[in-house]
């Protein structure tokens, strides 16, 4: 698959293609980031890779990265994100043994770096935290609808709802519950 096809796949949440992308570049990514930051063990490098892939997806979803704005290969872009995630991980663990030079050695320009920076806006962080805490019945329902892209009929069958309408009502209730929690947090 070409970079352009992968970008389209990330944009349309094509899970098969995203998984293929993830598998294809994992070994190279871990080798490159591992050689730059030798203090990371293999588990941490895999975590960094997952985080970088999620941020790549997020940048594509938010329109920060498109076929037109991509000036290097998608893998180089991913490595750029990976270096930033690695840097943040070190900083968070107060183990900064490397300096900001990691950013200057990056294969991407400063302008692009600013695009990769993780959205640390309070609002989205709070939304993410609330969504990640969500359990049954809302989590499977909303994930099946918004992530897997199933229709309400399919969701009703999979999750044993009486019919599509009751699944839809429950979905909207879950969404409103999330909204009210977040509104109470003054978001």
């Amino acid at each position: 698959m070409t970079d352009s096809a992968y970008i389209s796949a990330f944009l349309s949440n094509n899970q098969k293609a995203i998984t293929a992308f993830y598998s294809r570049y994992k070994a190279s990514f871990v080798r490159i980031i591992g050689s730059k930051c030798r203090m990371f063990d293999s588990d941490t490098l895999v975590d960094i890779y997952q985080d970088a892939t999620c941020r790549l997806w997020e940048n594509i979803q938010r329109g920060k990265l498109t076929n037109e704005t991509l000036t290097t290969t998608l893998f180089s872009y991913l490595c750029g994100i990976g270096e930033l995630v690695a840097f943040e991980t070190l900083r968070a663990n107060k183990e900064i043994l490397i300096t900001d030079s990691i950013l200057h050695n990056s294969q991407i320009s400063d302008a692009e770096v600013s695009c990769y920076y993780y959205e640390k806006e309070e609002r989205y962080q709070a939304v993410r935290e609330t969504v990640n805490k969500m359990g049954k019945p809302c989590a499977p329902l909303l994930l099946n609808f918004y992530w897997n892209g199933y229709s309400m009929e399919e969701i009703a069958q999979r999750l044993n709802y009486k019919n599509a309408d009751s699944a839809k009502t429950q979905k909207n209730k879950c969404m409103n519950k999330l909204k009210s929690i977040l509104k109470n947090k003054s978001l």
Partner: protein
Amino acid sequence: MNQLEHTEWIDLYLAGTLPPADKMEFERLLSDPESSLLSEMQLQQDIIMAIRERGMREMLQAEECRRHRQKLFWRISSVSLISLAMAAALALLLIIAPLARQMFPYSEQYAVTLNNSQAMRSGEITDPLLQQLHQAQTFITQNNWREADRLAVEVMKQTKSTETEEQLDLYHDAEWLHAQCLMHRNCPLQARRLLKKIASDNGYYNKQAQNILDKIK
């Protein structure tokens, strides 16, 4: 519009499936400064993004688990294969090799003691099956046990279903020759099985077969 309808309308609007008339009304409300619809839509967009991000992370995590399981499976498989190979090698060393070593000298000793040997030696052989057996014995004297075995098996096949006494004798001769060839060609387990069969039959060679079996114990 109540709250539930808001959520539904925003979903439809974001998916681009809101009917045109409703879309106009929705966009009018979005641009209305008195309405909170715009901020609600932004919040819903963030929630959807966060749900998809969670889905994405769970999918990558599942992929990682799948790869881990696959790696573990191959690791266990390779360990099992190595163990199996080692067990086979050990069996070869402890059971098969000594058995084959014991059998080998008997094969040369007993291969020439065929019931029909006298008839073969008289020279005038007209029966093609007897000729084949004679040829097999010639191969043995030339140390070509593989070819001798092939001919013995051939004669066994051709005489297996016949009931005349001569042909039955030929079958027993060929079977005996086959057993000797197996003993000589380091197939001790097959040879032992065949010797047991010969020993249990009421054939010409049952005592000799039993004799070999007693010796190799």
